């Protein structure tokens, strides 16, 4: 495979490559689009997502920024308000905290506060998650947190197809859209369906149909959940795995439909349990699907500690396949 | 009232009380309370309705004469 251009006809690629192709095609298709962030140009991106793009598109459209999140996110907001279609890359969501005021108080609110006179068609991409021993300050999963804020859309591509095509839909959206790419997923490899040329950024999707329990999840917890489903199938329990894909706005219809059918639910979320997106989903299920439930709702989340550095401790702190299996199994009880 | 008319009236009133039964097909000498499964309240309601329709006083001591269709026909025929 040609990593610079992505040889036509080759559908097998990594998640990282899918992200890169997404940016590449966005720049090719729309001259208002450009990429800006730390180390995106000369370095080729902290996770090598933008490798080769500076050479292809030049410094005007692949812009290295200073180490100043608040400033370059603010600039991105301004560019979007002025009619550009910037893709702002924040190296990881951990650093987005430095630009939180810009994201929450400007990007999310300017369309509202200007009475619609200004749109903010901004896309912010961030790497997220733990599992690479980057320790407490660099292993957060904050997508659930951002999903609390009205005015933003929050996407969590968990498949290579979504990594490849969600960006296009995000750029077409007149609202600020945050895309969270899990660091562990970058190396995932898979086959793209040649028939698929675009995806929506509104619906959750059933990745594996089942009848006994719904596992609702996203991001890097998706492959773990699918693995857990295979384990459960050996025990005669058919789990339905739902990839949430969008955390704000949550796709109630798909979620409620799934849990209404299976009547049992495990939510897997790499955020910490308290006040997480899994709590929001559990609350919605209790509000709207209560009378269909045959068992309490269970959640598998990160342990409520700052993410440890030591490999075995980090593994113990993050959600794992065994925990998902255990949670689902426990819901059915004796048969 | 003729015998037939009395029986028809009684059957009609009893149908109101026991709608799923067919009082007109009852053998004349059977106890209607047993056959139609009607209790003392039902029977009293029947007496009230019968009294109203026939204009008869029907004192309590005459009730036993009204436990069968034959008895009802005889009683009402005699008194009216």
């Amino acid at each position, binding site marked *: 495979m040609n990593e610079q251009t992505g040889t036509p006809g080759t559908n097998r690629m990594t998640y990282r490559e899918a992200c890169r192709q997404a940016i590449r095609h966005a720049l090719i298709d729309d001259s208002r689009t450009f990429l800006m962030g730390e180390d995106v140009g000369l370095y080729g991106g902290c996770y090598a997502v933008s490798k080769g793009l500076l050479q292809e598109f030049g410094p005007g459209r692949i812009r290295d920024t200073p180490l100043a999140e608040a400033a370059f996110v603010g600039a991105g907001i301004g560019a979007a308000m002025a009619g550009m279609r910037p893709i702002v890359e924040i190296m990881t969501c951990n650093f987005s905290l430095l630009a939180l005021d810009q994201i929450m108080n400007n990007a999310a609110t300017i369309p509202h506060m200007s009475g619609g006179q200004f749109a903010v068609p901004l896309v912010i991409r961030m790497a997220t998650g733990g599992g690479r021993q980057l320790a407490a300050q660099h292993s957060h999963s904050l997508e659930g947190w951002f999903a609390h804020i009205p005015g933003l859309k929050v996407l969590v591509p968990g498949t290579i197809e979504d990594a490849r095509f969600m960006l296009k839909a995000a750029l077409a959206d007149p609202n600020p859209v945050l895309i969270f790419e899990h660091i562990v997923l970058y190396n995932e490899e898979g086959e793209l369906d040649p028939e698929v040329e675009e995806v929506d950024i509104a619906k959750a999707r059933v990745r594996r149909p089942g009848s006994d329990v719904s596992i609702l999840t996203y991001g890097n917890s998706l492959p773990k959940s699918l693995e857990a489903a295979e384990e459960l199938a050996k025990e005669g329990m058919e789990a339905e795995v739902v990839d949430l894909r969008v955390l704000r706005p949550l796709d109630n219809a798909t979620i409620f439909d799934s849990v209404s059918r299976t*009547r049992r639910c495990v939510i897997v979320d790499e955020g910490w349990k308290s006040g997480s997106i899994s709590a929001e989903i559990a609350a919605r299920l209790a*509000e709207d699907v*209560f*009378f*269909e*439930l*045959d*068992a*309490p709702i269970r959640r598998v989340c990160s342990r409520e500690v700052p993410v440890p550095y030591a490999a075995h401790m980090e593994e113990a702190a993050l959600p794992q396949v065994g925990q998902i299996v255990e949670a689902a199994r*426990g*819901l*059915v*009880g*004796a*048969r | 009232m003729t015998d037939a008319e009395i029986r028809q009236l009684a059957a009609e009133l009893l149908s109101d009380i*026991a*709608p*799923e039964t067919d009082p007109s097909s009852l053998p004349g000498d059977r106890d209607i*309370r*047993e056959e139609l*499964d009607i*209790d*003392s*309240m039902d029977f*009293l*309601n029947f*007496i*009230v309705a019968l*009294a*109203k329709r026939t204009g008869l*006083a*029907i*004192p*309590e001591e005459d009730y036993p004469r009204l436990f069968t269709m034959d008895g009802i026909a005889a009683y009402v025929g005699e008194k009216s």
Partner: protein
Amino acid sequence: MMPSLGADMESGKLVKWLVEPGSTVKKGDVIAVVETHKGAFEIDIFQEGTIAELCAKEGEELPVGALLARIGAPGEKPAKAEPAPPTVEEKPAPPPPAVEPPAPPAEKPEPTGSKAVPAKAPAGRAGRAKISPVARRRAGELGIDPAALEGTGIDGSVTLVDVELAASRSRPAERPGPTSSEKRRAGFDPDQMRQAIAAAMSKSKREIPHYYLSTTIDMTRALGWLEAYNRERPPEKRLLPAVLLLRATALALKAHPQFNGFWEDGSFHPGEGIHVGWAIALRGGGLIAPAIRDVDMLSPGGLMEALRDLVGRARAGGIKGSEMMDPTVTITSLGDRGAESVLGVIYPPQVAILGFGKVVERPWVVDGKIVARPLVAASLAADHRASDGHAGGLFLSAIDRHLQEPETL
């Protein structure tokens, strides 16, 4: 709120609204018809006011405790209120503040002394069955008591499959049911009523420690008085012996209040008023025991009217919801064609049920001589948590004494 019209009721179907937003209602007005597996009931209202909003739709199946309508102060315009989510509770709890009109708690739309126990959270009750929401709902539809089942779910909870299995086991395999026209004439579904009775009676036997006492009552004086009374009156004004039994029991209860009320949350709560549930056998099978209110305050003539009205409406499916919730005690009388004695099963959460058999002529001893007397066997089945045999014996004696003085009834 959807009332609980029986110890085992979990849900009901709102068949028809009889009011609309803007209608003025006063206490006792019938506002809707609700269907349960026991049949159709009229729901009457306990408050005065103006209907603000009808929250439930006709044809909708709702759990006990679900919001049916909002009532504003009299004359208040129906406003657009935010919907409150329906809640399922084991027993109807007092309505949330949003539903209550600006009236003191005494105006709660739950009848006095019934299953609504104000402000008592059931949290921490030991031994409370765990039942999943869908299992509870399905059990309600099937007329099964889910608390009676063995749970195979998490923490021993009763799950949907447990309920379905229990239902399929208790259902007879192939049995030609009544034809639909027979069912319609009966005004209710006999199968479902059977299930409902099964559920209530099972719960009673499971939870209430019954004790039984009986006595034989000489009815000579009572029946003699009745005969004289009836002789002077046209048929529509005559009394049945049941009237005397009801009155005698009600008056005896005034002196023995521990048999008139409810056992709830571990203690006895006396009924507010003596409202006697009168067991009525329905044609086509089925049993219902709605209340005649304030029996101690009714004249014999008034009581006969009430009885006739109640029995008529029971057979036609016109019993009001409040009448199902009201009884503070129950009487079952087998009348003149049943057995000589009956030992009843208490309707939870009541604490007593009186049974009267048929009046029979038997030898009796008066002044050392054997004479034929009309006798009736009177029995008391009572909740041993609320009363003891000694008190029960005194209570039965009191009924006997009242029946010996029929002119005072």
